[in-house]
C-alpha cells in the first residue's frame, strides 16, 4: 500500500483536483450559452477530456499505477476510436443520392400533405365511397352495420370493433382512425390496409365515424400521428410506394 507520507500529500491533490473539476464544469456550461458555431463542440469535448484525465490520473491513481494498467485503459479508447471512425466512414460518406433518398422517403410536404388536409374533413360523397369500400373490405369482420358481428369476426380474438358502441381503442378522431386503418393494430387480427390508396382510407374513416355516436375532433396532437400539423413522427413504410416516381427521379437528377 502507498506509504504514510505519500498519502498525506494525496489529500491536498484531491482537494485541488476537486476544485478544478467544479471550475471546469462551470466553464463548459458558460461556454454553451455563447454560440461559436462548430467551436462549441471542440470546447465542450476538450474540457470534458481534461476533466476526464484529471479524474483518471488522480482520483483513479492511474498516475501512480504500473504501466500495464495504463496501457489497458488507453487501449479501450483506441478500439472505441476505431469503431467510431470506420462506422462513420460508412454512415457519413454514403453517396449523396442515397442520403437524399432517405429524405425523399418522408411523405413530401407538397401534394401528399395537401391531399391529406383536404380529405380530413368528411363530405357526403366521401362517406358514400367509404360505404362501398367498407362492404368490400371490412364487412367480413366488422359486420354489415358495423356492429363488430361480421361472420368472419366471431372466431377472432379480440373480436372486431363495434363502431356503433362509440368506444375507440386507439382514439376516435379522424387522424387516429386513419392511423388504425393504415397501420392496423399490433397484437390483434386487424391487418394494416396500407395497400388501399390514401383517398380510399379517408373515405372509410368518414363512413366508420358516421356509424359511431362518439366522434371527437382532431387535435394538433393527433394530427401529428398522420403527418399533418408541422411534422411527421411515425414514418409508415407504405409512404414509400406512394411516392410518385417522377418526384424520386427528378430528386435524383437534381442531386447528380
Amino acid at each position, binding site marked *: 500500500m502507498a506509504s504514510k507520507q505519500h498519502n498525506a500529500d494525496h489529500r491536498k491533490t484531491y482537494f485541488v483536483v476537486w476544485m478544478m473539476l467544479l471550475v471546469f464544469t462551470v466553464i463548459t456550461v458558460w461556454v454553451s450559452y455563447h454560440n461559436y458555431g462548430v467551436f462549441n463542440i471542440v470546447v465542450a469535448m476538450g474540457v470534458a477530456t481534461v476533466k476526464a484525465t484529471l479524474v483518471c490520473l488522480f482520483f483513479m491513481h492511474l498516475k501512480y499505477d504500473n504501466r500495464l494498467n495504463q496501457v489497458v485503459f488507453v487501449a479501450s479508447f483506441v478500439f472505441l476510436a476505431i469503431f467510431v471512425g470506420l462506422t462513420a466512414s460508412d454512415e457519413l460518406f454514403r453517396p449523396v*443520392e442515397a442520403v437524399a433518398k432517405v429524405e425523399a422517403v418522408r411523405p413530401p410536404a407538397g401534394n401528399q400533405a395537401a391531399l391529406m388536409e383536404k380529405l380530413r374533413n368528411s363530405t357526403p360523397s366521401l362517406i358514400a365511397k367509404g360505404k362501398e369500400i367498407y362492404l368490400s373490405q371490412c364487412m367480413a*369482420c366488422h359486420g354489415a352495420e358495423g356492429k363488430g358481428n361480421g361472420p*368472419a369476426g366471431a372466431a377472432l380474438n379480440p373480436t372486431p370493433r363495434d363502431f356503433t358502441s362509440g368506444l375507440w381503442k386507439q382514439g376516435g378522431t379522424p387522424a387516429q382512425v386513419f392511423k388504425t386503418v393504415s397501420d392496423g393494430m399490433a397484437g390483434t387480427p386487424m391487418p394494416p390496409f396500407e395497400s388501399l390508396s390514401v383517398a380510399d382510407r379517408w373515405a372509410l374513416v368518414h363512413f366508420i365515424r358516421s356509424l359511431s355516436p362518439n366522434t371527437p375532433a382532431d387535435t394538433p396532437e393527433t394530427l401529428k400521428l398522420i403527418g399533418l400539423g408541422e411534422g411527421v413522427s411515425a414514418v409508415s*413504410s*407504405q409512404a414509400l*410506394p406512394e411516392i410518385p416516381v417522377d418526384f424520386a427521379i427528378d430528386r435524383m437528377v437534381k442531386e447528380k
Partner: protein
Amino acid sequence: MIQFFKIFELPRSSTMAGKIDALYDFVFWVSMISFLIIVIGMVYFVWRYRRRGVTPEPTPYITGHTPTEVSVAVVLFIIVMAIFYWGWVDYTEIITSKPGSLEINVTGRQWLWEFEYTNGRKTVNEALVPKGQPVKLIMGSADVLHSFYVPDFRLKQDVVPGAYTKLDFTAIQTGEHQVFCAEYCGTAHSKMLAKLKVVEPEEYQKWQKTWEVEQSLGVQPAQAAESSESRPTGIENPAAPRHGAAPELPAERGKALFTAKGCTACHSVTGQILVGPSLKGVFGHEVDLNDDSRITADENYIRESLTDPQLKVVKGFQPVMPTYKGTLKDEEINDLVAYIKSLGN
C-alpha cells in the same frame, strides 16, 4: 480438368461479368498454387520423415529462418494488394451510373419484386430490358432487407427499407436471366424469384409503345380486348415467335403465371399450408370462409380472390393477400383459373 469446371460456368450476360470472372480466375489460380505448395510440402514431409521405429529419430535443432518467413510475408503482401487494387478498380466501374441509362423503379416486398417503368407501367416478378443499353435500377423495400441478385450478371445490391439503393448493369446477351433475393427476408425468401428478360432494343421500344397506346386509349390493361393470340407470359412480346408446336393449353400458361406472379410464395400446390391455403384439390369443392359461411370454389370465387382478395377469406387465414387488379390481364386471370381448375381433381 478445365472441362470439368466448365459445367459450373455461368453465362456472361453483362459487361461486368467477364471482368469479375477474370479476377475470380486470377485469385483461383493464386490460391490453387499456394494451396498445392503447402499441401504437397506437407504430404512429402509426412511421408519422407515419417517415424519408422518406436523411438523417434534424432531431429535437427532448427528454430526458424527469419529471411524465408519475411520473404513469404512480403510476397504474399504484394499479391493480396494486387488483388485488392484489381477488385477496387472493377468495383468503381460497377457503382458508377452511366449517363442516359434506362431507369426502372424496383420495390422489394415480402416475397415478390415489383418493377415500375418511367412511363408508369408496373409488372410483378418480371422485367423487360433492352440489350446493350445501360440500365439503372432504383430500388427500395416496403418492409425488410432484400437483395436483388442476378447471377448471370454477377451483380447484386441489397435493398434497404427507408432508403433507395441503385444497381447499374448493361446486358449484352438476350434471353431470360434468373433474379434471386440474396438477403434473408423471412418465410418465402427462397420463393422471391423474378425473371429479367433481355430483348433487342427495337423490341423493347415496341413493347413499351403498345402498352402506352393502350393507356392513352384509356383502356384498363385488365379489360383490354386481347387480340386473338394470347401471350404465354404476362408480358406481350408481339414479335416473339410462338415456341412449341402445339398451341399451349391455358392451364400450362396458368402454371407458368402461377410461379411468375409469386403465387408459389404463399400458396402451395402440394397440400402444404404456407402463408395462404394450399390450392391442391380446391376447385369445385366446398370451402369454409372466415365468416363461417360455405361456398363452392368456382371460377368466380377464384377470379374475385385475385382482384379483391379480402372479400371472402378462407377460415383461419389472415386477409393479407395483395390485390392483382391492374397487374393481371383478363386472359391471364383465365389462364390462372384454368390452372387452378387442373389442380382440382
